[in-house]
């Protein structure tokens, strides 16, 4: 049996891809990814039209997608995240069909449930053998975990592995196994290493960020959850990383042995593992070189699929065992609804990713954000887009006070008892507006450009086009 084919074009042709079908991609190569563009360009050259693209995330390197949309090659887009440059294009209303935003857990759930079937999955693999046993841990384009690609491999009708590092059969320590793979293609490069992982992720040096981070660590300490067996996820933003550093100091000082760190893993989480703060890392995506090196060499650092990470359709997912998650926000309203999809002018610039999944699953979900950014207050009467519903958010930490969701009375009492600066979220909003002024609301567009599907797989909000310019 020979699965090796000579070109992407041959693989597309053999896969039987036709007008109106669905193709899928994973995003572990992030802004360094070459595969989505190579495949879509070839599909366009072959004259195939009216496709659905189901990509776990889209980055600005995928800007050629805009041309494929305008030419009718792509008519539906499903994704969990869209970076700001590409998001701006979508916000102008270039598509007839709204984008379908899902969460990192919701995407594999809907794939597994058959709600969003995939005809052909294209899997960028930094290492593969000739039968398609493949991994993200090895090779010049190493990205670490391939967590988001599992659902695509397991449920797509046809699976094409694209690699720039063909190794002898069998690849040891594979992530996705050959039993799912139809074709293997070799190319010169699947991505640009500079865009795949950042060299180092750095903690913030901004004094406001450090105050927020210190407050965040104190909230965790006072929450009652910081004890042996503690589990934790944080993002890669500067203030979130600083919070992790302060948390690490507290854990080491008190001799607390946590159970696992989850996520999107950075070098800081690896440091916490090595320092004994955690016994395991559960990794759906590596953010930096430190994380890639660790998942390759340390058996305590475990790759997990997106289903295992966060799927609401799984029998259980790791987010359901998570104690604390630190998350960001572009806006949060007085009902604690959080927006991570659109910027302050209404343009798409992100997406839930795992935000809503971890907020829903964790015991304590914390938003860390400054009181205002570039004159715009973080707390509003109503966010422009509900990415994560307020019922799943426990606390907002800013430099000017800590606002606890009224549903979590126990947490509020614990924080007050610890002497922390607990404020009502309405008071925090007023205090901020005394500094910034009260912003006028944005005019709403007249066309839905995206629907936002939550962790519970139901539509929870719509994003409208941005007029003018």
């Amino acid at each position: 049996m020979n699965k090796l084919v000579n070109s992407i074009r041959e693989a597309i042709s053999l896969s039987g891809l036709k007008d109106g079908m669905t193709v899928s991609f994973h995003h572990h190569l992030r802004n360094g990814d070459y595969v989505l563009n190579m495949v879509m360009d070839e599909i366009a050259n072959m004259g195939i039209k009216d496709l659905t693209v189901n990509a776990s995330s889209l980055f600005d390197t995928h800007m050629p997608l805009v041309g494929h949309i305008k030419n009718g090659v792509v008519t539906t887009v499903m994704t969990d995240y869209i970076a700001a440059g590409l998001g701006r294009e979508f916000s102008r209303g270039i598509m007839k069909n709204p984008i379908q935003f899902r969460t990192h857990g919701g995407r594999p759930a809907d794939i597994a449930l058959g709600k969003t079937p995939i005809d052909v999955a294209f899997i960028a693999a930094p290492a593969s053998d000739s039968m398609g046993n493949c991994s993200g841990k090895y090779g010049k384009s190493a990205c670490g975990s391939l967590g988001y690609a599992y659902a695509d491999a397991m449920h797509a009708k046809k699976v094409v592995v694209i690699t720039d590092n063909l190794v002898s059969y069998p690849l040891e320590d594979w992530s996705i196994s050959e039993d799912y793979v139809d074709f293997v293609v070799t190319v010169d490069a699947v991505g640009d290493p500079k865009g795949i992982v950042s060299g180092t992720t750095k903690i913030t040096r901004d004094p406001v960020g450090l105050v927020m981070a210190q407050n965040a660590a104190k909230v965790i300490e006072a929450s009652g959850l910081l004890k042996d067996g503690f589990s934790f996820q944080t993002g890669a933003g500067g203030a979130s990383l600083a919070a992790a550093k302060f948390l690490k100091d507290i854990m080491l000082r008190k001799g607390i042995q946590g159970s696992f760190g989850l996520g999107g893993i950075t070098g800081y989480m690896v440091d916490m593992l090595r320092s004994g703060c955690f016994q395991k890392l559960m990794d759906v995506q590596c953010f930096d070189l430190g994380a890639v090196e660790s998942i390759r060499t340390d058996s305590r650092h475990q790759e997990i699929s997106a289903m295992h990470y966060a799927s609401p359709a799984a029998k259980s997912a790791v987010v359901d065992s998570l104690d604390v998650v630190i998350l960001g926000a572009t806006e949060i309203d007085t009902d604690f609804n959080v927006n991570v999809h659109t910027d302050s002018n209404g343009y798409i610039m992100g997406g839930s990713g795992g935000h809503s999944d971890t907020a829903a699953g964790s015991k304590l979900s914390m938003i860390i954000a400054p009181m205002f950014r570039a004159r715009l207050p973080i707390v509003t009467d109503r966010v422009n887009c509900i990415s994560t519903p307020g019922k799943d958010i426990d606390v907002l930490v800013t430099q000017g006070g800590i606002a606890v969701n009224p549903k979590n009375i126990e947490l509020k009492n614990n924080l007050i008892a610890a002497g922390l600066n607990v404020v009502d979220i309405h008071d925090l909003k007023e205090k901020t507006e005394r500094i910034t002024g009260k912003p006028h609301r944005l005019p709403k567009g007249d066309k839905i450009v995206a629907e936002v599907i939550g962790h519970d797989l139901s539509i929870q909000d719509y994003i409208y086009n941005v007029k003018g310019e």
Partner: protein
Amino acid sequence: MEILKSASAGTIESSDAYVEIEPKEGALDIQIESVVKEQFGEEIKAAVKDVLDENGVKNASVRVVDRGALECVIRARVETAILRGKGEE
């Protein structure tokens, strides 16, 4: 108060504002670009106008590039540009 020469103040860093001022015969011309124009456009224009009035500036062309500065910052940048334009600083 007369603006005698072209002058500027501020930066285009986030949360700051950059202000340019130059002499203009018989008119006061104000141009504002802002990343928060939808949310604070009117307030920014009023603040700039206010500082110009306070300093008796009537014949000048003023351009403000606002990167989300607080009102106190905008006022300070405009005032500094005026003082520099008069040759006082």
